[in-house]
């Protein structure tokens, strides 16, 4: 198998096994499925629903911010809107986005396995996720929560008069679905790799998912116990975080950020993995410095646990702790920078084509880099004091989470779409949507960097009039972004049923997932594939 890549697999003799979509058409065949591919799609439906809710909240906020006065909604409503937006986007869209949909769908395919290690646990994780979602929806319907997604104490534990307990319970429950997913992936990647698929031949998406899974498994329980403590504090009136009763509100921040900073890497690491796959496939070249890129994923996963205190530079934590956390934050930025350089070097002397997944991947590189360099500014102590809790931070993390994670998610959906439904999405509408999203995104969030440096604090319902011009620009961008997100919803749905048939390997990409039919057969492979080469075995070698 010197160059197995561009040749589609030999047709399997005998009758074709049914594909996973044809394996059953009843509702029960979906809701009780143990097939990782169907579970991936169940997640896709769920997170699309939550994305729509959260995006609606964002739209209302942006309209409210068109004028300095609070004229569309009251401040109570506004505070509930941004909490709803944050909680839903973070825990019910971004965290499960790439891991639970694309990860579930492609990890077993990429390692040549029939399924994940614990298929029942996998299905259970979806139900746990939905149960958590129900609690959250209940909290929203009953009137919402006004604490912000960060649930800072003692506001959340003592002062807030909103449905904190229901929403904390929702996030608590959803956390166990994260843990189950992470555990499943760790064991799957360790134990179910096809013969010959050594760690040194593992596609970079799997390296990043492995690192992500470690974070899911080791960080999420700390969030769970922290939210449980808030619920207990509200129930029983004890003061674990309440200074009036001897508690320390900063303890909450330590425990919360111990989870929530690594959680940022749960969102972005899988995105980096997707982008590595796409860049290699559309430049027809191995990713430059494969070993270093793989190692940087692991380094980010581990170092990401050591930097949480940079969210607390002005919180009155010790000055020395601030200095240590600042240093560690700079160190975690190094592996991210390495990845960006490596992707650019991969393009060098490649055979590049610009289909939609590649457009998203390139968009990711640009936006993630802007998010990264502004992250370096935020790691710098003196600058952070000025811009933390302002729109500068809002813009920074949207560049990472929307410009990074969501762009990669969209890229991945388009890239693996033929494998998901056996059909191609329409190319030109998809390219136009990608460009619309890119432009709308920048117009929405770039002005917010300026706003933040000028001093506009985040979570402000009314603001001084000198900030209006930039807010209007941002809202204009958001409306373009909204249209950009509606377009894929329409054409992807259409192409799922009516798109042009795709062969097993429409991109001419390497990777085991392209060596089986599209859509994938119910048990993935007619016979267990054997791997004899490294990943990205394209004709061009560096």
């Amino acid at each position, binding site marked *: 198998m010197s160059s197995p890549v561009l040749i589609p697999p030999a047709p399997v003799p005998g009758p074709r096994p049914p594909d996973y979509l044809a394996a059953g058409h009843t509702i029960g065949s979906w809701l009780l499925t143990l097939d990782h591919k169907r579970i991936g799609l169940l997640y896709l439906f769920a997170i699309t629903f939550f994305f729509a809710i959260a995006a609606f909240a964002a739209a209302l906020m942006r309209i409210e911010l068109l004028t300095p006065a609070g004229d569309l909604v009251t401040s109570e409503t506004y505070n509930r809107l941004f909490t709803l937006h944050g909680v839903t986007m973070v825990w019910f869209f971004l965290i499960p986005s790439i891991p639970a949909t694309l990860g579930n769908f492609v990890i077993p395919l990429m390692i040549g396995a029939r399924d994940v290690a614990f298929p*029942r646990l996998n299905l259970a994780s979806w139900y746990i996720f939905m149960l958590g979602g129900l609690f959250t929806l209940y909290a929203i319907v009953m009137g919402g929560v006004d604490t912000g997604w960060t649930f800072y104490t003692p506001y959340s534990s003592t002062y807030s008069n909103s449905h904190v307990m229901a929403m904390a319970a929702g996030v608590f429950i959803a956390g166990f679905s994260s843990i189950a997913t992470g555990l499943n992936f760790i*064991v799957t990647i360790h134990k*179910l790799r096809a013969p010959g698929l050594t760690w040194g031949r593992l596609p970079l998406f799997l390296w990043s998912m492995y690192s992500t899974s470690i974070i899911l498994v*080791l960080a999420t*329980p700390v969030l769970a*116990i922290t939210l449980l403590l808030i619920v207990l504090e509200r129930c029983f009136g*004890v003061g*674990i975080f309440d200074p009036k009763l001897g508690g320390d509100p900063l303890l909450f921040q330590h*425990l919360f950020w111990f989870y929530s900073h690594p959680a940022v890497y749960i969102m972005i690491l899988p995105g980096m993995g997707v982008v590595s796959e796409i860049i290699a496939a559309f430049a027809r070249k191995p990713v430059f410095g494969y070993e270093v890129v793989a190692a940087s994923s692991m380094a980010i996963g581990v170092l990401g646990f050591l930097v949480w205190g940079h969210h607390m530079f002005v919180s009155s934590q010790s000055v020395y702790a601030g200095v240590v956390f600042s240093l560690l934050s700079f160190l975690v930025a190094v592996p991210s920078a390495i990845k960006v350089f490596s992707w650019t070097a991969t393009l060098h002397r490649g055979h590049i084509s610009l289909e939609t997944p590649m457009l998203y991947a390139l968009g990711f590189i640009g936006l993630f880099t802007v998010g990264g360099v502004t992250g370096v500014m935020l790691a710098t102590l003196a600058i952070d004091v000025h811009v933390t809790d302002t729109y500068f931070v809002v813009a920074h993390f949207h560049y990472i989470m929307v410009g990074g994670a969501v762009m990669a998610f969209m890229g991945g959906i388009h890239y693996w779409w033929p494998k998901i439904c056996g059909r191609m999405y329409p190319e030109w509408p998809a390219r136009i949507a990608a460009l619309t999203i890119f432009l709308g995104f920048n117009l929405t969030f770039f002005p917010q960097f300026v706003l933040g440096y000028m001093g506009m604090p985040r979570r402000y319902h009314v603001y001084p009039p000198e900030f209006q011009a930039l807010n209007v620009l941002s809202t204009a961008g958001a409306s373009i972004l909204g249209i950009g997100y509606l377009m894929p919803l329409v054409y992807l749905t259409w192409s799922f049923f009516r798109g042009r048939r795709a062969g097993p390997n429409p991109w001419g990409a390497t990777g085991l997932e392209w060596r089986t039919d599209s859509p994938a057969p119910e048990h993935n492979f007619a016979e267990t594939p054997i791997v004899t080469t490294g990943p990205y075995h394209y004709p061009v070698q560096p």
Partner: protein
Amino acid sequence: MSNTLTHPAASPYSDREQHAVANHLGMWTFIATEILFFGGLFASYSLYRWAYPAAFVTGSKHLEFWIGTLNTGVLLTSSLFMALADLAVRAGRRGALRWSLLATWLLGALFLGLKFYEYHLAAKEGHVPGAHFRLEVPQAPQVELFMFLYFAMTGLHAAHMIIGLGAIAWLLWLNHRRRLGADHDAPVSMVALYWHFVDCVWIFLYPLLYLVR
């Protein structure tokens, strides 16, 4: 947790050995998760013990030292029987398996009984944090914090024990239906790992809560 059902279509494994190793890896990953889950409480405990050492001594003196010590012994003994159950299933001895599991279950129940008796004593004396907390000692708010940590940590541990008792009952039922054996030992090994781990949590709770002097 343990994925023992081998529906042919669902099983991603090629052989039993691979399945067994995957089960162990999964269970140990779960235990790592649990360490961090309890870890949040241990971290809070460390902070407040460091901040309020005297209050923690006061609080610890209000716990029932003998119940705590006795319970530690009960749990260690239950762990012994759980380990023996693991040996029995691998040797395919159904009778020994039944008796060891039964002993483990009863000791676990005894532990919970003693624990709830202790809670009852605390409630009667008004040591439960919250609106009804009554303790006329210096630094009462900090002592209340200790009592809160005591209830949170032992309560979470007790919840794990209850889940463990359910799992052992399930094993007894499986054994009764002749669905456990030398070539089908995964459910017992997995529950055993869980049970021993919950035991280890108590091994730390005991000195942290009862032996602060």
